[in-house]
């Protein structure tokens, strides 16, 4: 893929070429035009001077002195030539500069009529060709003459070339200057990206743990998310590692008990009882550690999840499962409330706390999910009218295996909830509910990026 610098340079060169090329072309055209106009005016002036110097004889012939005040007419091959023709096209006079030069054909013109063209001599030389028609009234006879002034293109072309050289020199200089200025501007604007790349390399080599520099606003979304993602990944890895080693270690106890039971043949604790008990224990351990390892925690790139939909699904499911108990559950959820995190975490969190409430409630459950915008907190309150929890036991129910669950027999639901809440840097408060039973208040911090 093309680098950003080359992209910018290529596009800049294209723009500059079009703009400066266009400008040069237009200026060149305008200059040529005005140079031609100037030549025409000059030749017109020469024609007027010739008319002033000319004398017309009674027979219609023209007399012009040999030495004219315009030196170039007198000089042989000076590049400026003149002739006078009568209305039959017959040459009546030609300047000394003409000598034996063959001049291009010209047309006869009427009085004050003028033409200005570039024409070629029979030998192939290009000349500016100015014709001017003039008439004299001599003894009631009108004589019409055409004054023909010719000038070689040499000086005109020299002038144009000089102008072109200067023009392209300037335009080229300006282009180089612009590219240099733009290049340094580009280096300056792209510097944060280079810094970020260097920092990422440092992170890769383990010298840094996050992007530390301050970045311009446009890049902050990227760098902040990158930092959050790395932090999240690291936490996830730590959780994974911890639960794996916890899993291995905590399975050793039931395994040891099983082995010793198989060897001891103690009549007081028959093998079946030990097996049943330890299998339960092991199941609880596996379930809990699996859940702990799969808790994602806050993930800056996860898509927001509609809380109401999931809460309703879980509530409806539990109403079905606990249909015998005829429980009325009241859900109050702020509309369009969103959870920034993993969907499965939200399912486990709400599923386990609601299941606990349904299990203990007599007939009524109240669920409120609200948010405080200022402090970016998600508050989940679940209350029931069951027997409640003794204050001194409140923290203990959040530990693994304190209360035995009938359904699947693990009693790890609330321990899982506790773990998820910690992964989201939140808190759980257990209190007496005004409904008479237990009140759970879960507060999760919700950092949106």
């Amino acid at each position, binding site marked *: 893929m093309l680098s950003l610098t080359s992209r910018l340079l290529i596009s800049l060169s294209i723009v500059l070429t079009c703009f400066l090329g266009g400008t040069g072309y237009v200026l060149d055209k305008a200059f040529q035009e005005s140079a031609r106009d100037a030549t025409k005016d000059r030749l017109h002036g020469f024609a007027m001077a010739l008319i002033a110097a000319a004398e017309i004889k009674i027979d219609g012939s023209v007399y012009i002195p040999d030495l004219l005040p315009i030196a170039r007419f007198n000089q042989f091959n000076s590049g400026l030539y003149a002739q006078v023709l009568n209305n039959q096209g017959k040459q009546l006079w030609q300047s000394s500069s003409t000598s034996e030069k063959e001049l291009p054909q010209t047309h006869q013109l009427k009085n004050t009529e003028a033409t200005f063209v570039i024409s070629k001599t029979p030998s192939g030389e290009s000349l500016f060709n100015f014709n001017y028609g003039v008439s004299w009234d001599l003894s009631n006879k009108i004589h019409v003459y055409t004054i023909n002034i010719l000038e070689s293109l040499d000086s005109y072309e020299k002038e144009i070339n000089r102008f072109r050289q200067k023009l392209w020199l300037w335009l080229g200089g300006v282009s180089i200057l612009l590219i240099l200025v733009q290049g340094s501007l580009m280096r300056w604007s792209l510097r944060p990206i280079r810094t970020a790349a260097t920092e990422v390399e440092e992170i890769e080599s383990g010298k840094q743990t996050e992007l530390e520099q301050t970045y311009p606003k446009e890049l902050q979304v990227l760098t902040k998310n990158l930092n959050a993602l790395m932090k999240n990944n690291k936490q996830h890895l730590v959780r994974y590692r911890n639960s794996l080693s916890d899993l291995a270690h905590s399975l050793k106890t039931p395994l040891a008990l099983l082995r010793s039971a198989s060897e001891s043949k103690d009549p007081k604790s028959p093998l079946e009882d030990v097996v049943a008990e330890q299998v339960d224990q092991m199941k609880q351990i596996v379930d809990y550690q699996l859940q702990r390892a799969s808790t994602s925690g806050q993930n800056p790139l996860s898509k927001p999840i509609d809380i109401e939909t999931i809460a309703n699904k879980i509530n409806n499911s539990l109403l*079905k499962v606990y249909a*015998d108990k005829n429980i009325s559950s009241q859900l109050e959820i702020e509309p369009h409330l969103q959870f920034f995190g993993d969907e*499965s975490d939200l*399912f*486990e969190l709400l599923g386990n706390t609601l299941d606990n409430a349904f299990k203990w409630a007599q007939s009524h459950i109240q669920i409120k999910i609200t948010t405080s915008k200022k402090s970016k907190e998600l508050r989940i309150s679940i209350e029931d009218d069951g027997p409640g929890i003794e204050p001194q036991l409140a923290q203990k129910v959040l530990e693994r295996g304190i209360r035995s669950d009938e*359904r699947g027999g693990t009693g790890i639901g609330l321990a899982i909830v506790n773990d998820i809440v910690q992964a989201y840097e939140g808190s759980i408060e257990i209190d007496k509910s005004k409904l008479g039973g237990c009140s759970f208040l879960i507060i999760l911090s919700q950092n949106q990026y």
Partner: protein
Amino acid sequence: MRVLIIEDEDTLREQLCDQLKKQGYAVDEASNGQDGAFLGDEYDYDATIVDIGLPDITGLQVIEQWRKNNRTFPILILTARGKWQEKVEGLEAGADDYLVKPFHYEELLARIKALVRRSSGKTNSIINAFPISLDTNAQTVQLNKKPIELTAFEYKTLEYLIMHNDKVISKTELTEHIYDQDFDRDSNVIEVFVGRLRRKLDPDNTIKPIETLRGRGYRFNLAISS
């Protein structure tokens, strides 16, 4: 009571069958989703047990198919992962309860009983139809608060009739829900059981708990108090 089990793990399925048969259930089994779905569509079960993780079509699909075909029997799903997302999906698809593997058989039996009771509109495990009282947990029957001795088949016949006290039960239906499939349907054993039940429950022939509707079947006739 006839129960269908769909479970691909052979050992677990056989153990489940044994346990349920020991408790007096008639049991059909299937080791994959397609066979199971077919059985559920063809026969009327009192309860079904469906493993979510089946090899061919998933348990969820089986449940959805049944509910689409208006099969109303209660469904208990078995899940290995115990994830709430999975439980909710199963319950939304039409299951009535869930159980996470591994489980205790007592738990499974309790859930099945509760589901059967719930589906017949009885919320309590003890059903009172004065002067008869039936305890579905202990599987015992009392007459005027005194226990009476019933054989397993007599109990099952009575339980089925009481559970469906609002309708007429044909002999075929009784046979299907009480015996395993290899039972000889032409025999008149049902008539014998009903006759014996009548003598035990109503020795004086005064309360007439079971009514015979000629050519149609039997109906439990006593009012049930909640």
